[in-house]
């Protein structure tokens, strides 16, 4: 009984600050954080979406997340296709290298990229942000795709080859449809990770402002509290919803075609 209380209490603890963000987005006050809130309004949503700086930041974040996800999908799929079956010299090293950007603190990746860009004379901007994000997003796609490849039955591929399909046709008609939802799930997670990333971005962004950087600037110099609250809730939604989507896409691993062997 005590255990049950502790477990549900823990869940409440994890979700309480998120509920607070949602609550304050509708708060009528414009400068204070008094609790309980005095009243609720939708006014700040219209105010937030009329702000050019907010819209710019949203646009930049979307661009970065889309490009980084695209690169991560290509590189992650190639890496997982190379690593999932054959063993060869340096395989462990390659998988370690893929994990390194999320295993090491983001500040190391960020400052390393910054110093490299400086040395090469590359001006920070959209391009440098995307490079940083794509680097740590690859492993997300890689993990999803390699898990699916390992579950996909080898006999399906053999059957396809026996029936006269070449490597490309087998990939196009057998492997790709099987990978579809894993790619989608990996892509969604990579998108969420990129949309929210702040630590690497502070180093690689230069004067550009992604949505998390816009938020951080607001936090250090609190001015437009209601607009900040609305943007905070928006960012929260964009990062949380892909989790639900990815969960439903990759759930039920038993139903993958041919997994019965």
């Amino acid at each position, binding site marked *: 009984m005590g255990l049950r209380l502790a477990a549900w209490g823990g869940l409440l603890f994890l979700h309480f600050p998120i509920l607070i963000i949602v609550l304050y987005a509708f708060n009528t006050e414009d400068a204070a954080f008094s609790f309980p809130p005095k009243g609720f309004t939708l006014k700040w949503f219209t105010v937030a979406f009329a702000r050019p700086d907010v819209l710019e930041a949203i646009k930049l974040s979307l661009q970065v997340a889309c490009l980084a996800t695209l690169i991560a999908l290509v590189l992650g799929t190639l890496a997982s296709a190379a690593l999932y079956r054959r063993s060869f010299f340096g395989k462990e090293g390659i998988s370690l290298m893929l994990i390194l950007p999320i295993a090491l603190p983001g500040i190391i990746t960020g400052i390393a990229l910054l110093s490299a860009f400086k040395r090469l004379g590359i001006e920070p901007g959209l391009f440098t942000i995307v490079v940083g994000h794509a680097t740590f997003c690859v492993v997300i796609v890689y993990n999803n795709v390699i898990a699916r490849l390992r579950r996909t039955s080898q006999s399906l591929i053999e059957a396809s080859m026996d029936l006269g399909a070449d490597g490309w046709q087998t990939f196009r008609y057998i492997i790709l449809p099987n990978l579809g939802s894993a790619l989608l799930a990996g892509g969604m997670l990579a998108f969420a990770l990129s949309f929210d990333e702040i630590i690497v971005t502070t180093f690689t962004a230069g004067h550009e402002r992604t949505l998390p950087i816009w938020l951080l600037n607001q936090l250090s110099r609190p001015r437009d509290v209601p607009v900040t609250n609305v943007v*905070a809730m928006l960012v*929260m939604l964009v990062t949380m919803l892909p989790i639900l989507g990815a969960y439903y896409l990759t759930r039920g691993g038993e139903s993958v075609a041919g997994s019965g062997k």
Partner: protein
Amino acid sequence: MKARLANPGPLRRFANLLYRRPNLYLTLLLIPPLTWFGAIYLGSLLNLLWQGFYTFDDFTMAVTPDLTLGNFAALFNPSNFDIILRTLGMAVAVSLASAVLAFPIAYYMARYTSGKTKAFFYIAVMMPMWASYIVKTYAWTLLLAKGGVAQWFVQLLHLDGLLQALLTVPGIGGSTLSTSHLGRFMVFVYIWLPFMILPIQASLERLPPSLLQASADLGARPGQTFWQVTLPLSIPGIAAGSIFTFSLTLGDFIVPQLVGPPGYFIGSMVYAQQGAIGNMPMAAAFTLVPIVLIALYLSLVKRLGAFDAL
């Protein structure tokens, strides 16, 4: 049909070539990711470490490529060493507290839920884990603010006296909750807690029920079974989770900047050195600290079986 077999298209010929030459196929697959990671990621990491040996002139504020070990030696200056100890202490405290808080949740998830409830718990832990880091930090600045939710709760439960007493303890306290070590510690624990719950839950899931039955059959009381069977066998999970809580706290520079008393953390020191001060060599030397500490920590928890529980 015959014509197609006799004269296959270029795509098919290419596919057949790759099928006959698996090494070529493997190489072609690996070239793009390896180029990206080798050139961009490893290249910049090595470049950064190399810069740690450069010389920074305090008077001209310029960096010259004269190699020196001075930056690394400077890490052991009392003021810099204090920063390292402060960060390390926080990382250890956060890891311990996360393990204590995470264990009951993970234990309940693994042993007392199934089907829909288990899925619900799983998603309920995953969602806050993925929810935006900066927004979670922001939420805590709201919670801890003067007149905010935390204060409201404390007053509701008439614990003002206790809170004031806690805040006067040196090393833990501060003038208010949002500028105290305690507040910063709470934010860290909150943000990294899900990273601890999931590995512990996974390691408890893998625990064969027959072991627990055997323990009971041999006359152990439930408490004895827990302390002598369940807990030791969940150590790999705890160790795996602590990799995340430890290394994420060690490199953080946003939370120390927004919550807690003034005073640098490793992350904020790196940020200040490269940004405001422009001393990239010293910043590079400082980034070596978390790398070394994490490498040491990994070799420690590897012995506890953490890598099998990841």
